[in-house]
């Protein structure tokens, strides 16, 4: 009956998102009077697995299988479905990231389980089971009733606070049967950026728009992000122009993020841009136009020229760090 949570790992390590998922699952378990079982796929050592207990998992099922090395949506869905069946889970929690989006819908059909995708709050009601879900690209939220016996919830990254717990979790190593001939995905090449903070993981994001005027003006923006321990982002025209890499583009057609702090520099605040950042806890806008729509979304604003303001902000942060 436990709440099942799929905790992805990255080269054998969990990250904040994994703990957000477990914290969320623990919240649902508390509401429904049950416990949390975390399922992990791939080689993760025991001390790392135990960390999931620190956020409320009471059992950890660790799956290792040669057919579960690269993400294959069918193989992953079948492995998670098998554990869900063994556990008799009625609620399954998965991240609303690339992996979750690949796996959750397949699991849904397999288990005939309705999906509440992109949730950021605990269910608002248990009977009928109702979740609060982002719709219309952040312009509205829906109270969505999931009518099926088993429910799948996908959690937006950075939207749920960590809740430390002190569970000593039991670890079970499970071998599942995955028919290798059914695994259809062959990965022929991997390109990975290393050492850089991922935009989706960052608590602080400093982002530039067309108001930055030229790619040559980016160094104070990057410096500000570095000093704050954050990542850099940009609006779509900026990445379309090739001023900044595509991976930095936020918005409806780019990345959807929810950092604690989003600093929008020279960004007008078009609805398609806001669609990607409106869940940020705090938005700061720096723009020469006092009527720019970004100021309607922002809590703090500076009306001024980014080129002049950014170096002053860099200085102020440096002083603060002293």
């Amino acid at each position: 009956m436990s709440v099942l949570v799929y905790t992805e790992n990255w080269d054998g390590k969990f990250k904040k998102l994994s703990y957000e998922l477990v914290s969320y699952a623990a919240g649902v378990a508390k509401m429904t009077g049950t416990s949390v079982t975390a399922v992990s796929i791939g080689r993760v050592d025991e001390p790392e697995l135990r960390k999931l207990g620190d956020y409320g998992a009471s059992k950890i099922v660790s799956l290792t299988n040669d057919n579960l090395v690269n993400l294959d949506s069918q193989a992953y869905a079948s492995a998670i479905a098998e554990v869900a069946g063994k556990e008799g889970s009625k609620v399954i929690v998965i991240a609303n990231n690339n992996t979750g989006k690949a796996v959750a819908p397949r699991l849904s059909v397999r288990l005939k389980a309705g999906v509440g995708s992109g949730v950021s709050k605990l269910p608002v009601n248990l009977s009928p089971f109702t979740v609060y879900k982002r719709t219309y690209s952040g312009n509205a939220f829906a109270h969505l009733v999931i009518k099926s016996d088993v429910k799948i919830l996908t959690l937006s990254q950075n939207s749920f606070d960590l809740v430390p717990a002190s569970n000593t979790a039991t670890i079970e190593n499970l071998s599942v049967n995955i028919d290798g001939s059914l695994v259809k995905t062959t990965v022929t090449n991997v390109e990975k950026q290393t050492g850089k903070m991922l935009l989706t993981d960052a608590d602080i994001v400093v982002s530039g728009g067309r108001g930055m005027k030229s790619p040559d003006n980016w160094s104070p923006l990057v410096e500000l992000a570095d000093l704050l321990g954050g990542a850099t982002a940009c609006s779509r025209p900026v990445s379309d122009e090739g001023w900044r890499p595509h991976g930095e583009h936020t918005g409806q057609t780019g990345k959807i993020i929810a950092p604690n702090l989003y600093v929008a520099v020279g960004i007008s605040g078009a609805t398609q841009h806001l669609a990607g950042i409106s869940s940020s806890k705090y938005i700061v806008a720096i723009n020469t136009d006092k009527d720019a729509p970004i100021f309607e979304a922002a809590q703090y604003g500076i009306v001024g020229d980014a080129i002049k303001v950014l170096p002053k902000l860099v200085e102020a942060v440096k002083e603060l760090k002293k």
Partner: protein
Amino acid sequence: MKILVCISNVPDTTTKIKFAEGNTSIDTTGIQWVINPWDELSLTRALELKDDAANGIKSVTVAHVGPAGAEPTIRKALAIGADDAVRVNAEPLDAYFTAAQIAEVVKKEQFDLIFCGIESSDFNGSTVGGMLAEFLGTPSVSAVSGIKFENGQPVLTREIDGGKETVTVPAPLVVIVQKGIAKEPRIAAMRGIMMARTKPVKVFEPVAVEPLTQVLEFEKPAPRAACKFIDAENPRQLIELLQNEAKVI
């Protein structure tokens, strides 16, 4: 090889969303309906692939689950260059229902490559593509930002955390697309618009499927507090507020 592109009919992305009937449905007055941005891009890429004869693509079909009111959006897809269309004549009740309907279309008409968008801009489900693949029992690859053909087989680029992978998966296959799949959406030319009028749109009646979810009501996000302005000559004050008031740095 036959390609199917699933298109969702959504309010133009700049629409100010309002609700009707006790917040249970969207107020459609004055809404411009468009092809979901991702679907417009996957249609564009499908047509580009077909343009290159070496890829051996016979046809590009679009599929939509929705009532007759969605015809203009379907015609737009035909005007952009799709060869024909299938509409399942039903209100898309939820993602599970919608995917089940498209699965029936695929079973009847047989496609090798099926494109879905990563997300509809109205429901933001990110689920129809994966559900469709599971109904069909075919592989699916998600977060696909590039597709080309090598030796008659699709070669995909998919996004992973902080990078990308090149993957091959044999057809039939559901490709779930995101940013990068095509640069700019293809625009309908006059000739395309003329031709679209006579292109075939098959209408299928839905199969009986019980949806798994239902929207009880919609709600607008809580309004944010008014913006606090800081003097451009004194940005240090911003840093102080972020540290002491917002406590985010």
